[in-house]
């Protein structure tokens, strides 16, 4: 027996409805540390206007946000702060790693800079560039929306299965110490990162 639907009524899955609502109302948490932060500001302001894509409500309290944008390099002293902010954000939450420094350390291959935030927190989207143009960030937000629409669930079970960090595994510090002691060094360049497959 066919059931007639009155006008203005749509049938959908609950997940899809929730995803539709979520993807069009992303509230970014700008974790702006360096140069990329200025491009993030440029993206939000007059010429590029991220409000066109429903992601303009920058909130500086992690409790209110569902999209973490890590804009700029993260250094040793800052990483615990980043991890704490990530833990403070409520589920469901996503993370965009903006710029070469946040993705891989970029040009700053030094003692203090974390070589990619994805070693220590989960990352959903990488934006290359140093810094990325605002158009690139907007493209990332659009891709993020598409990803949320495709994979999001109401109960958040899409996150449950991911037990490993997204990026390459961090180096084993004891292994590094062992290598360092094994190599007869004259002081410089004793650090030899293991190959990542």
């Amino acid at each position, binding site marked *: 027996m066919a059931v007639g639907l009155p006008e203005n009524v749509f049938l959908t899955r609950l997940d899809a409805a929730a995803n539709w609502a979520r993807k069009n109302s992303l509230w970014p948490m700008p974790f702006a540390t*360096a140069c990329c932060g*200025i491009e993030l500001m440029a993206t939000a302001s007059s010429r590029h206007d991220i409000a066109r894509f429903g992601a303009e409500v920058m909130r500086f309290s992690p409790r209110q946000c569902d999209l973490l944008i890590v804009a*700029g*390099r993260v*250094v040793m002293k800052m990483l615990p702060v980043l991890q704490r902010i990530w833990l403070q954000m409520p589920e469901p939450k996503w993370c965009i790693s903006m710029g070469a420094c946040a993705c891989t350390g970029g040009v700053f291959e030094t*003692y203090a800079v974390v070589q990619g935030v994805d070693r220590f927190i989960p990352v959903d989207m990488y934006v290359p560039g140093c810094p990325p143009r605002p158009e690139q960030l907007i493209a990332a937000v659009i891709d993020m929306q598409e990803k949320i629409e495709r994979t999001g669930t109401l109960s958040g079970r899409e996150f449950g299965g991911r037990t490993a960090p997204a990026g390459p595994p961090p180096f084993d510090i004891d292994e590094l110490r062992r290598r360092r002691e094994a190599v007869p060094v004259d002081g410089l360049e004793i650090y030899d990162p293991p190959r990542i497959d």
Partner: protein
Amino acid sequence: MPLELAETSDPGAADQEYLWTLNFGPQHPATHTTLRLVLTLDGENVVDAAPHIGYLHSGFEKLGEYLDFNQYVTIVDRMNYISPIANELSWHHTVEKLLGIEITPRCKYVRTILGELMRIHDHLLNVGAVALDLGAFTAFLYAFTQRERIYDIAEYASGQRFHSSYTRVGGVLFDVNNDWAEKVRQFVEGFKPVHAELHRLLTRNRIFIDRTKGIGVLTAEDAINMSVTGPLARASGVVRDLRKDEPYLAYPDLDFKIVCARGGDCYSRYVVRMQEMQESLKIIEQAVENIPAGPINVDAVTDITLPAKPAVYRSIEGLIQHFEVLMPNRGYPVPLDEGYGATESPNGELGFYIVGDGTTRAYRARTRPPSFIHFAIFPHLIRGHTLSDVVAVLGSLNIIAAELDR
């Protein structure tokens, strides 16, 4: 029965129990980037402030010892990232002083124009951000639209809109052309009404004046004693501008004034920045009409600058010279000596202390960062003011975290 108010504080007692401790940062919108302050509050009044820095320390100076003089310009760019080319000018100014190179007149003018554009760039962001923090959002949007125009000019010259990495030892990356000069002229014309509009939005705005006037006063003696330079020192009445005192680039030929104020408060700093933009416009207007013809890099016979691309592709001499500059065991002669050079960056005296050891890399590349020195005076400025003044003072100091921590 009237309530009897308890006697409030004696301000010196910083360890009293009724004082609050408030952590401000390192991730806070008004810090713009990564600054951290631990404020001691008596009610709403700030008794003391302890800045904690290093949240963006990424080893710039160490990298300077591993990259050669041309490569390090990419790192220097990322130092004061709201006016990148100003840093490049300072770096290569010092490198050229170390190597003893005199750049061509055309290069001097092009660098001057870019330096002044960067001054406008920097001051625009600062004025806009101060206004944003104090609740005037419109000025921020006006400022950012103009910043996009300057990005366009930098992109036209170098190919990159943000971190241009445009200067090279003894010259620049590409020569500029008439279209570029036309773009600069258009910017200057278009900027004048916006500058007037910014004045109308802020300069006599009652709320803005109430929030900034008399706040964070720095006297001239303190400014000198605490090594403060740039717009901050000039707002306190210190007449000091490296463009006049130790003229470099094309500044001796150009007619401009040093902007000073007497107040030393946040409002004076704002006014000084606004007026400096006006002076910068004057400089750009004069310089863009007088760009000399001729080569932009120093003579191609030297082994310092890269030859032009057509010469590399079409002549054996150009190819050899290209190799001579780029091969790691060749390069240019660097004296076994060390020197300090500084330019007037938008934020103050940005200097480099370079030690050369005969190779094409610096043995030590020390930066004298104005933000680092300016942030040190913050506790001195904020003591006795209220909590809401913290953002006003912080904004007026224009602290750029990457320059602060390097």
